[in-house]
C-alpha cells in the first residue's frame, strides 16, 4: 500500500513528507487537491504542512473544502489512516475530521524551534508503537499552533514537555479523532527523519503510515 501525500496551493512540506515516507522504506504518491478520488491502493493519507491558501481567513479553512477532502473522509470511513501535520492538522480540524481548532500562538509570533513532546494516549495505531510517556524531539514551526478544544472529551495524543506550549489547551501538541485513525499534530515529524537533521524521532509515525 502507498502513502498519499496531499498537495494544495501553498503546501510547503509535501516533498519533505514524501522523503520521510521513503526514509522508512514506504512508497509515497503525490495527490492534487482538485482531484475527487485518492489513487487505488492508498493505506494512509498525509496532509502536509505549509500555508495552504496563504492561511487566509483561517489556517486550513479553504483547503478543507477542496474536492480531495471528500475522498479523505471516505477513506477514514473505510478504516484508513490519516496524519495531518501542522497546516495539515489545521485542515483536518477545519474539515471536522479532528476535534477543536487552532488559534494564534500566545506569543502572536511565528515560532521555529526544536520541541520535546510526550505521548499521552497510545490507544491508536499511530501512537501504539511508541507507548505512553515516550518522548520525541521534533521541530515546531507555526504561528497558529494553539489548540483549542475540550480535553475532557477530545483525545489528546501528544503534549509538549516544558514551556513550549504555544497557548494550547492542556499543552496539547497533537490530537486524535474518536476512532484513533486520524492524528493531527503541530510539530513536524518529517523534519526529524534523518540523523543529519539532528533527530530521527519522526520516523515512527511514518513507519505506521508506510505499513498501513
Amino acid at each position: 500500500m502507498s502513502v498519499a501525500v496531499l498537495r494544495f496551493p501553498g503546501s510547503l512540506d509535501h516533498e519533505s513528507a514524501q522523503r520521510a515516507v521513503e526514509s522508512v522504506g514506504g512508497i509515497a504518491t503525490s495527490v492534487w487537491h482538485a482531484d475527487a478520488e485518492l489513487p487505488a491502493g492508498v493505506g494512509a493519507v498525509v496532509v502536509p504542512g505549509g500555508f495552504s491558501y496563504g492561511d487566509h481567513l483561517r489556517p486550513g479553512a479553504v483547503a478543507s473544502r477542496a474536492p480531495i477532502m471528500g475522498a479523505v473522509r471516505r477513506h477514514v470511513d473505510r478504516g484508513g489512516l490519516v496524519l495531518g501535520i501542522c497546516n495539515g492538522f489545521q485542515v483536518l480540524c477545519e474539515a471536522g475530521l479532528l476535534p477543536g481548532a487552532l488559534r494564534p500562538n500566545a506569543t502572536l509570533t511565528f515560532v521555529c524551534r526544536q520541541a520535546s513532546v510526550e505521548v499521552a494516549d497510545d490507544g491508536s495505531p499511530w501512537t501504539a508503537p511508541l507507548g505512553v510517556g515516550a518522548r520525541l524531539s521534533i521541530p515546531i514551526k507555526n504561528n497558529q499552533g494553539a489548540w483549542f478544544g475540550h480535553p475532557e472529551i477530545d483525545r489528546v495524543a501528544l503534549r509538549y514537555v516544558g514551556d513550549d506550549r504555544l497557548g494550547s489547551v492542556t499543552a496539547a501538541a497533537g490530537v486524535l479523532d474518536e476512532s484513533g485513525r486520524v492524528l493531527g499534530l503541530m510539530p513536524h515529524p518529517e523534519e526529524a527523519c534523518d540523523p543529519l537533521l539532528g533527530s530521527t524521532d519522526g520516523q515512527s509515525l511514518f513507519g505506521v503510515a508506510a505499513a498501513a
Partner: protein
Amino acid sequence: MSGATKPKHRALGLTDREAERITALLDREPTDPELVMFSLMWSEHCSYKHSRRLLGRFPSEGPGVLQGPGENAGVVEIEPGRALALKIESHNHPSAVEPFEGAATGVGGIVRDILAMGARPIALLDSLRFGELRSARSRHLFVRSVAGIGHYGNCIGVPTVGGEVAFDDRYEDSCLVNAMCVGVVEPGRVLRAAASGADNAVVLIGNRTGADGIGGASILASAELDEDEDRRPSVQVSDPFTERKLMDCCLELASSDLLVALQDLGAAGLTSASSEMAAKGGVGIDIDLDAVPLRQALTPAEILVSESQERMLAVVEPRLLDEVIRVCRRWELDATRIGVVTDDGDLVARSGGEVVARIRATSLTDEAPAYRVALHAPSPSEPLDLADVPEPTDLATAWRELLGRPNVASKRWVFEQYDHLVGANTIVRPGGDAAVVRLPGSNRAIALTTDCAERHAELDARGGGAASVLEAARNIAAVGARPLAATDCLNFANPEKGSTGWRLREVIEGMSQALEALGIPIVSGNVSLYNESPARAIYPTPVVGMVGVIEDAAARVGHGFVDSGDVVLIAGGGRPRLDASEWLGEARGCPDRPDAASEARLCELLARAGERRLVQSAHDVSGGGVAVALAECAIAGRLGADVELPVERRADEALFGEGGGRVVVTCRPRNLDALRDAAGGVPLTEIGTVGGDLLRVRIGSDMAELSVADATNAYEAGIPEVVA
C-alpha cells in the same frame, strides 16, 4: 515649487541635461508616459549611474561561473549537473516607510530574481541595520521588519537560514534591510531575460496591476489632476501566497521547456522588465496596455511603471501559449498575453488603439547616463589612545555586560521567527557562523552567510571592504566549507556629496583584493545610495553574501564545544585591538588592515581540517573578540573551558579586542598533531581545555570567570529584554 510651474522632468527627478539627452535620443519631445519611463529607468536604482563605472573592478569570472553580474542573479556551477543562483538586494527605503510590508516585499523581490533564472529558491538570508534599540522608532522598525521577513519567507516555504543584524545610531534615520536568496538550477536549464523571436507572445503572470509604489507617474498625474489625494503612491502590500504559486508555476513552466525567457517585475515594473528583455535580446516589444489586468483604474503611464508585486513577464512561442496559460490556471494564477516580440528594437506601448510610447529599448537601458562620482578622500582617522578607553574594574562583569549588548547578544529572538528548517535540508541552523543546507540527492552541502564590517569601513574604507569579504569567508570556512562565490549589496550615503564616492571606490578595491586572494568571484550584487538624512549619513555598509561548498555534508562543523578534554586553540593571526570594536562601541581608531593572503590560507586550513574530521568545533572571532567567541562556543555546547590568552597591552584588549583573522577551534587531543601538520604556515595557538560548567580565562596575572549559565542568561536576554 508647485507642480504647475516646475518643469515636468524636474518634478520627476531628471536633470535638465538628462532631459536634453532624452529629446536627442528620441529626436522629438517625449510624451508624458515616455518621460516617466525615462525618469525611472535612469534613476540611480535602475541605472546605477553613479556606481556602474566602479563596479567593473570586481573579479567576476572563474571556472564555475555560468552567469556573472548583469542578469537577475549570478549563477555558478557547484557540481556536475547542478548550479547555484545567488543575489542580494536592498529594500531600505520601503522598509523605513512601512517596515513590515517593506521588508516582506524585499524578500519577495529577491526570490523572483532567483526564479527568473529558472532556479528553485532554497535559502534566504537577511542583513539588517537599525539605530540603537533605545530609540522607539528603531525598535519599531526592527520588530516589524523581522516580522515582515518571517511572514514572507515562512509563507513561501523558503528557509531563512541566516543573516545579521546590528544597531548603531548612524542608521537611526536610514535603516538597512537587505535580503539574499540562493537557488538551485541545472546548468542546461538556466533561463535568461533576453527576449527573442519576432511574434512570440509576451505574457504577464501573477497578480493584477494596481497603483502600488507608483512615484513619478502619480506626481505627473497629480500635477494635472489638481493634487488628487488618491493619487499618492500606495504602499506595496505583500502577497506571499501568490508568490508561492508563482514559484511552483514558473518552475513547472521552466522544467517543461515552455518558456523562451523569463523576467521578474521589480522597480519600474513593466517598463523595466520589458525594456531589459528587449534590449538584452536585441529585439523590440509591443505592449497593449488595455490587455493588462488591473485592480483599479490607472493611466497608461501608471500601468507602465506600477510596482505591483508578485508578477513575472514571460516570452512564449505562440504554439505553446495555450499550454502556458493552462499551467498558470492550474495554479490559480492570472496569465495574460499583453504583447508581442518585434524585430525593430523599439519598446512600444499602446492604449485605446494609440501609441502612447515608442522608445528604442536600449535608450532606456544602455543609454542611461553614467556619472563619475566625486572622489574626495576623507581625513584619516586618529589612532586610538588606549588611555582614553576606561579599563573595566571587573573583567567578568564587563564580559557579561558585553554578552548582553544587542549587537553581540543572541539573535535567537530574530531567527526563531523565521522558519529556518522548511525543506528538511538545514543541517547547521542559525546561531553560529554560516548556516549549512544540504543539496538533496547529493553528498554535498552549501554554507551560507552575510557579513559586513561597516565600522571598519568608516575608518578605513579599503580595509573595511576587505574585512567584510574575509569575515564572510571565515564564517564559511568555520563550518568546514570552501568559499565558492559571493554577491554584494553596497549600501552607501549620497554619492554626490563629500567622501562617499571615494569610499565607494576604496571599498570596492578592498573587497576585490580580498576576493582575489580567496580566488572567488562576485557574480551579482546591488547598490543602494542616498542612505542619509540631513542629520546622519550611514557608514559605508558593503554587505557580502557568500556561499561555500562542503564535499561531504556529514563533515560539517558546528560552533559549540563538544567534549570535555578537547583542546582549545586559536587558528590564524592578527593582533586583538579595541579600535572600532564592539567593546569600544563606536567607529573610532585605526583598525589593522586585514592580511588577505594569510586569511585565505586560514580558510583553506579550516576546510581541510573539517574534511579530515580533525576539528570538533570552530567559531569565528568577530564582534566582542575572543571572550565572546569562547562564550558562544560554551553556550552552544553547554560546556565550559579553562583558557589562558596571550598577554596584550591590557587584559580587556586581549579579551575583547577584534581584528586579524582568528577562529576558536577545538580538537580531540589525539588529533592535535595531525591538525598541526595540516596547518602549514597558519598560526595555531593552544590556549586551553574544554570542560566543566565555568568559563575561566587567564591573561597574565588577570583572570575573568563566568559560569556557562550566567553567560547564557546574559546572552539570551539581551534582545528580548529591550524589545519586549
